[in-house]
């Protein structure tokens, strides 16, 4: 497979309040073995050489575990592959001559900072509202002091795999953060350590999700399909159950 010559249509926006637009760039002599972000690095080096402002985008680990990167690639969050972040997307997925549209996550709760960078601190505030357990500090407890059945541990771990990238919000037609919030609630509510605060957690995290201005869940599962960690939407059923139960018992 030879080098790729591509046309990019990239969302450029100088600042939060500045108007943005799609700008066309040529990405030439791109190796098919590059990752999508490496391709953007190459384009940026070209822009810097020409004295232009490089395209801003978030990235950190570049191996799909940190949750920092993320953008819409041809209308799909993190691009066409299942279970991957955009840093794990390889250029061999594209054909010579392709046009690729690259846009930031879109949500009222995710304001654009610059170009493809959005402010996802709304998700941090949802975690702060109840995505934790309270315990006394001191010596670390013995690893197996609290027995956790294998099935429970697996369920909790599957939900805990969430890396908070925000793709679920970006893919949802309602910009709902239900998958993210439910993964946190399902993770902690499944474990013995999370029991004491289970009701308060469910109510506060749902409340914070609404306060941040995310939409409601329409149960379409677009979030699950784009999630790099393949978090299941059954977690949303778990969240709704926990929220209803918490509303029924006295707080």
């Amino acid at each position, binding site marked *: 497979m030879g080098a790729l010559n591509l046309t990019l249509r990239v969302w450029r926006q100088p600042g939060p309040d500045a108007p943005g637009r799609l700008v066309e760039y040529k990405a030439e002599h791109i190796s098919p073995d590059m990752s999508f972000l490496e391709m953007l690095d190459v384009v940026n080096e070209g822009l810097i050489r020409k004295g232009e402002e490089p395209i801003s985008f978030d990235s950190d680990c570049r191996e799909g575990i940190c949750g920092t990167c993320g953008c819409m690639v041809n209308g799909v969050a993190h691009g066409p592959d299942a279970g991957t972040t955009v840093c794990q997307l390889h250029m061999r997925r594209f054909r010579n001559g392709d046009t690729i549209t690259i846009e930031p996550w879109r949500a009222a709760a995710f304001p654009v900072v610059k170009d493809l960078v959005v402010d996802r601190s709304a998700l941090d505030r949802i975690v702060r509202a109840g995505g934790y357990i309270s315990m006394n500090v001191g010596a670390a407890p013995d690893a197996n002091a609290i027995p956790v059945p294998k099935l429970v541990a697996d369920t909790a771990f599957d939900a805990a795999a969430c890396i908070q990238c925000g793709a679920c919000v970006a893919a949802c037609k309602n910009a709902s953060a239900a998958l993210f919030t439910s993964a946190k609630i399902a993770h902690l509510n499944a474990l013995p350590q999370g029991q004491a605060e289970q009701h308060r957690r469910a109510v506060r995290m749902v409340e914070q999700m609404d306060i941040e201005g*995310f939409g409601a*869940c329409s*149960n379409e599962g*677009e979030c699950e399909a784009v999630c790099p960690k393949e978090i299941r939407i059954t977690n949303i059923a778990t969240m709704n159950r926990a929220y209803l139960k918490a*509303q029924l018992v006295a707080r």
Partner: protein
Amino acid sequence: MSSRPTFFSSTVGSKILIGLTGLMLFGFLIGHLAGNLSLLVGAEAFNAYAHKLESLGPLLYLVEAGLVGVFLLHVVKTLANYRRNAAARPAGYREKKWAGHTSRKTWSSTTMALTGLFILFFVVTHIRTFKFGAWYVDPATGHRDLYRLVAEIYQNPLYVAFYVVAMGLIGMHLNHGISSATQSLGLSNQRTGRTLVLGGRILAVLIAVGFAALPLYMYFAHQVAQ
């Protein structure tokens, strides 16, 4: 940003109410279809069934008022979420595709608001046509001859076509609605999730086909009889 929500104003509480009222309306449809199948037995059986319902008196009014309440709550909560969802993404994408893979997104799920709006229009028309339609009296029993009204109305092929299309749209609404309601109510889990989606589809088809069969039967049966 909005203020701290209560159960009724929260997105999750709203979806629980929408799901609950939706399942209630689905339950009503099953009962409605079961009763209407007496059309296949004949005029006597259908009129006897209709009279039995009428003779419930105040109890019937209570059930009807309950149904209207459930229907309105379903619509009002949906409208509230619809407004909220539109505000959650003020600037849209220039390019957006369906994600595929495990997604449950279908034409049914994307058109819920439209099919819902149509159902609202249909229900009003439907009640005006039959409940408040011509009041024929069966000389044999002295009760309402509802069968005659049904048979007359379904002599018009346009009306039959309208009903069949309407049942198709209701089927689409249920195709997403039934399994979506179980998900909203927290009744699905990792083991049952996919089965509920499939079960919802099958039930939606059964309801739509069952209801659509009645006007078609009335039309063709009477064509043959003439």
